[in-house]
């Protein structure tokens, strides 16, 4: 019983370490900027089939919420802040995103190919 507990604890720790450790081949990193309540660029091309690290930098003086139903991601980006959002692996296609706080102007899409 004692040995089994130790073993399961060790396995748990190993599993956590494995998932938290940076991937051997670092995933591609793409930058998205929010400026004047718009995204720059409005079209991002990323490779399909692998995880992508999306860095969103809000250069406005007010917060924005990055949201995408297609990607199933949403995250508030405070004014001046830089946040990281992991997306994918994506099948080839077009995935739209928007800024929830300024939906009229903050729009864009990610194209995976």
């Amino acid at each position, binding site marked *: 019983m004692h040995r089994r507990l130790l073993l399961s604890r060790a396995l748990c720790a190993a599993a956590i370490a494995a998932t938290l450790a940076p991937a051997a081949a670092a995933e591609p990193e793409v930058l998205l900027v929010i400026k004047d309540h718009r995204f720059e660029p409005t079209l991002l091309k990323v490779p399909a089939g692998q*995880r992508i690290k999306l860095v969103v930098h809000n250069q406005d003086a007010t917060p924005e919420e990055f949201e995408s139903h297609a990607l199933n991601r949403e995250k508030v*980006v405070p004014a001046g802040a830089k946040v990281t959002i*992991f997306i994918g692996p994506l099948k080839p296609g077009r995935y739209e995103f928007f800024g929830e706080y300024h939906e009229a102007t903050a729009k864009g899409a990610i194209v995976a190919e």
Partner: protein
Amino acid sequence: MYATALIVFRESLEAALFVGIIAAATRELTGRSRWLSGGIGLGALGAVLLALMAERLSGWMDGLGQDLVNIAVLATALVLLLWHCIWVSAHAREMVQQARAVGASVRQGQRTPWALLLVVALAVLREGAETVLFVGGSLVGSTAVSGAAVLTAGALGLAGGVLVGAAVYAGLTHIPTRRVFAVTNLLVAVLAASIASQLMRAVAQAGFVEAGTAPLWDTSSWLSMQSPLGALLHGLVGYDAQPSALQALAYAAVLLLIALATRWLAPRPRAG
């Protein structure tokens, strides 16, 4: 101004639905309004604090600070809900016996459900922080619109969210008394499952897990997350148009866990 009201409405809807369900599930408890308001107040306070810290927080852990807080909040809420469901099952026999002995309603005199109070606080905290950030940003950033207008629009949006939550609550109170125990336990179980699903999404967003994070299916052509019904179902039962395998698994696992615990711990009919 309509845009502001709409955004605040959407943000507050989820928390309002949550509170409405918990309120309905605890309808029979004495003094329930007191601790429920306490939970909401605590959550609101936490939301303001969280919003104030947001800028600094978001930069932590290479831009993942906010996700970490979100994960912690969701995980805590999940554990609390699971504990509550299992506690209720374990003590169902006691409660029923007590009620029969006293001839009173099943839930009277039960102690404060701390777990649910905390869960309500956590739900209000999560959604509230986003709302405070948004309204705060609108107050600071907008030169065209007066602060009073922003606050009024925000208040209207909040009122709208609360109204929907109250409507759900009112609807749930129409359940016949003999079914109320079973139905409200199911509601809380579904809440726990939907939190588990959201937890998996947050974990994927933070990049802690890669396997099983691709969407399993896409029902947005049938029911989009942006439609009013989609948003409502998202808040009530955790509907997601494009859940990942991990999300679906977590949802099912929590329901299964609660069902099994209930079966195992529930009072058995006495022989003879």
